[in-house]
C-alpha cells in the first residue's frame, strides 16, 4: 500500500517530520516516532524484514557511536545532573546520558524514515512524479532517468578496465602521485565512453520524437488524491502527538529548553 502513495507526497511526509525531529532533544519524542515509522513500514509496506534489517543495522552502529560520543563529550548544556558512571577520567552524567540516547534515537528515526521511502518507492515513478507534480522539466527528468540506467554499465566497465590494465602489467598504485596518474588512466576511457553513450542516447531519444516540451501525455499518471493527503497528515499529526505525549510525561526538551 505504501508503494501506491504518490512519491512526491511521500517524500514530504518523510522529510518535514525528520526536519522537525532535529529540534527535539529529549529521548521520548524520537523514540515514539521511531516506533511509529517502523510500524508503518511493516504494517503498510510490503517490506521484507531481512532486507530492512540489513540496511538498518549499519545505522544502529552509527547511532550507537553518536550516542556514546555525546555522552563522553557533552556540551555545557547537558553536563548537569548526577554522575551515573565513570570511565577513566570521563564522567557520564544523567543529562549527558539522556542527551546521548536522544541523539542516537533521532539518528535512527531519520534512518527509518529514509528506509521507509527508499524501500517502497520506484525511482522511475519518483522522477515522473517530480515532473508531473513539481513541474521538473521533462528534459531533466528523462536525462536523469537515462543516466540512472548507466550506473551498472559504469561499474562493469571499471572492472574490465582494472583487469585490462593488470594484463598490461600495471601494478597497484602506491603513493599519491601514482594514484593520481592511475585515476587519470581510468578516467579518460570511462569519460570518453560516457560522453559517447550520452550522445547516442540523446540522439535515440530525439529520434523517438522527444522534444523536451512540457506538453506531453503520461502513461503513468501520477495523481494526488485523498489518500495521499491522509498519509501526509498522519505523519504530521503523529509528530505533534509524540511531542504532546513527551510534554505530558515531562520529558519534552526542544533545542535544549525543558518544558
Amino acid at each position: 500500500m505504501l508503494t501506491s502513495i504518490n512519491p512526491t507526497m511521500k517524500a514530504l511526509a518523510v522529510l518535514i517530520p525528520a526536519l522537525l525531529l532535529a529540534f527535539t532533544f529529549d529521548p521520548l519524542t524520537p523514540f515514539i516516532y521511531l516506533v511509529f515509522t517502523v510500524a508503518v513500514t511493516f504494517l503498510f509496506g510490503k517490506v521484507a524484514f531481512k532486507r530492512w534489517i540489513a540496511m538498518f543495522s549499519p545505522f544502529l552502529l552509527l547511532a550507537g557511536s553518536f550516542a556514546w560520543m555525546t555522552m563522553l563529550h557533552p556540551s555545557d548544556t547537558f553536563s548537569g545532573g548526577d554522575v551515573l558512571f565513570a570511565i577513566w577520567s570521563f564522567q557520564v552524567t544523567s543529562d549527558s546520558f539522556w542527551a546521548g540516547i536522544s541523539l542516537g534515537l533521532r539518528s535512527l528515526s531519520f534512518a527509518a524514515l529514509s528506509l521507509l521511502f527508499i524501500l517502497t518507492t520506484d525511482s522511475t515513478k519518483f522522477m515522473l512524479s517530480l515532473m508531473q507534480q513539481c513541474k521538473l522539466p521533462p528534459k531533466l527528468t528523462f536525462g536523469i532517468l537515462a543516466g540512472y540506467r548507466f550506473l551498472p554499465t559504469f561499474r562493469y566497465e571499471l572492472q574490465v578496465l582494472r583487469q585490462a590494465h593488470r594484463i598490461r602489467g600495471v601494478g597497484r598504485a602506491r603513493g599519491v602521485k601514482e594514484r593520481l596518474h592511475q585515476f587519470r588512466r581510468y578516467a579518460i576511457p570511462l569519460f570518453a565512453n560516457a560522453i559517447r553513450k550520452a550522445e547516442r542516447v540523446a540522439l535515440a531519444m530525439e529520434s523517438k520524437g522527444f522534444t523536451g516540451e512540457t506538453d506531453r501525455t503520461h502513461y503513468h499518471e501520477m495523481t494526488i488524491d485523498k489518500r495521499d493527503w491522509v498519509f501526509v497528515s498522519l505523519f504530521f499529526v503523529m509528530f505533534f502527538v509524540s511531542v504532546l505525549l513527551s510534554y505530558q510525561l515531562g520529558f519534552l526538551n526542544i533545542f535544549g529548553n525543558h518544558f
Partner: protein
Amino acid sequence: MSIKHHKPLLSLENFSFGYDSDKEPLLKNLTFSIHPQETILCIGPSGSGKSSLSLCLNGLYPEAVEGWAKGEIMYNGTPLSHFKKGEINKEIGVVFQDPESQFCMVTVENELAFTLENMKTPREEMTGKIDDMLSAVGLTEEKHRAIHELSGGNKQKVALASVLLLNPTLLILDEPTANLDPVSRLEFIELIYSLKQERGFALFIIDHQLDDWLPLMDRVIAINRRGNILLEGKPEDVFYNEAEKLKEEGIHIPRIVETVLDRQEGKVPETYRPLSEADLGSWMNVTGQMTSLISEKIQPFDSGANEVSEVLSIRNISFSRGKQSILKGIDLSLQSGELIAIVGKNGAGKSTLLQVMSGILAPKTGSRLLLNKQYEAWSEHEMRKVMGYVFQNPEHQFITDTVYEEIAFGMKINGVNQDKIEQNVNQLLKRFRLTSHKWSNPFALSGGQKRRLSVATMLEDTPSVLLFDEPTFGQDAQTTEELMQMIQTLQRQGTAIVFVTHDMDLVDTYCEKVYVVYGGEVSFSGKPDELWERPEILHHAKLRLPFRVRINRLLENLHPNEKKQGGVRAHANIH
C-alpha cells in the same frame, strides 16, 4: 515493381554534409531518392559517413552536432528544415547499432510508453498499443522486465518496437545487427522482413554484413571513401557487374555472389544471378556445379617443422560468483601453435573461462598449468610476459597518450634498454602498419587501427599464449581479415591462440579445435567439422552453421538420393 511511378518519399538533391566547415565535407553531392515501401541497402567502407547520413535523413543532423549541410532533403516534397521539431521523427524512425545506448527508461513497458508520450497519444490508448507492438515483435513475455537484463537481440527488438510505435513511413536501420551474435542477427532480419510485409514501411538499411539482407533488397547504394555515391542500382547489377569496383573501395562482396563469381570466372549470365542461399543452391544444381564447397581450411602451421608441446592445460576447473555456479568441471588443453575457439551462447560462461585461463580470476577448484608450471607458482610479472590477453574493446587496454609509448610500455616495465626498445617498437609499428600514427593518441585511431594496436601491445616478446575475447565483434570484414593474418603469423612462430567468438565462419576456416560451452560445462570439444554434424549441440548453444556448410547441406538436400544421410540434416538448415 511499379515503385518508380510513385512520387518519392524522400529525396536528396546535391546534398553535402560536414562537421567542420574548413575541412572537406564528409558526404558530397548526394542525389538519390527513396520511394514508398522500397527497401534500400546502403554500403560503404568504414568512415565513409553512412551513419552521419542516417542522422541527416531524419533531420537530427546537422543541428545536433553543429555541423553544416548544403542542398536539400525533401520529405514528400517539403524540405526537412520546414518541419517543426519532433514532427519529422514521427515519419522517419531510426534503430541504431549499440543496443546499450538507445534507451532512457528501465523497463520495456516504460520505454515503449516513452515514445507514445512523445507523440501525445491519449493515455487510454497506450496499453493497447504497447501490447499490440510487443506481440508483433514477440516480446509479450518481457513486458515488465528491465531492459538491461535482456539479451542483445531482444534489446534491439525493444529499440525496433519503440520506433515502430511512431508508425513511420520510412525506417532507417543503422547497422542494427553489428553487435549481435549470428543467430540473433538472423532472427532480427527475419522479424524486420515480416514486419515490413505487414506494415509496408520503406526501409533504408546500413550494414557491413550483407548476406542475410540481400534477398529483401530492391536497390543498393554504395558510398565510397570520399563520401560520393559510387554505385546505385539493383543488387544483381551492383554486385555481379561491379564487384571489382566495390572491392577496390574496400567493400566486401556478399559470399553468395563471390561463390558464383569464383566459379564463373567473372562471367555471369544476366538471366540467373542468385542473391539468396536457396537460389545459390538451385543455381549450382542447374548449372551442374554440383561439387560441394570445399573446406578452405587455412593451415598456417606445417607440423613437423616445429616441435609441438603443451603450453597450457586446465583440469576440472569450477568457478562460481556468489551462489551462482558459472563453470563446472572444465578440462582444456592447448598445444603450441594451435588455434582453438571457445563458442556458445551469451551467458554460457565463455568469457569467465577465458579470464580463468588468463589468471585474472582464480577458480574455486581444479588445477591450471602454464608451460608445465602451476599458475600459483608464477609471479604476476613473469606470467604477463608469456601470456597476452586482448579484450573485446581495444580502448580498455590503452594506458598512455601515444601509440609509441603504448607499445613501449611493457618493455619499459621489464627494464629493456632504450635502444632495444626503440628498435622493437619501430619494428612492431611497421609490422602493424602504424608507423605514420606513431605520435597519435591511441583513442584517436580508427577502429581497425585500435584493434591492431591492442594486439601489438601484447607482442613485445613473442608470447606463448594469446587469448582473445570476441576480437571480431562489431568489426567490419576487412578488420577481421587483417586480424586473422596477424594471428597466423603468430601461430607460425609457435604462439598458441584461444578465441572466444560467435563467428562460425571464422571457426570453420581457421580453427583446429573448438570447445562448445553450455551452462558452464564443455558440451563438445573436437574438430569444427565434427561439430557441424551435431545439430542438437548447435541448436542448444545457439550456433549457426558456417556459410560453406549451409550451402553444402542445401545441395545435399536437393539430391537426397546421392548422399545417403541428406534427409537427416534438413533440421540443421534452419540455423
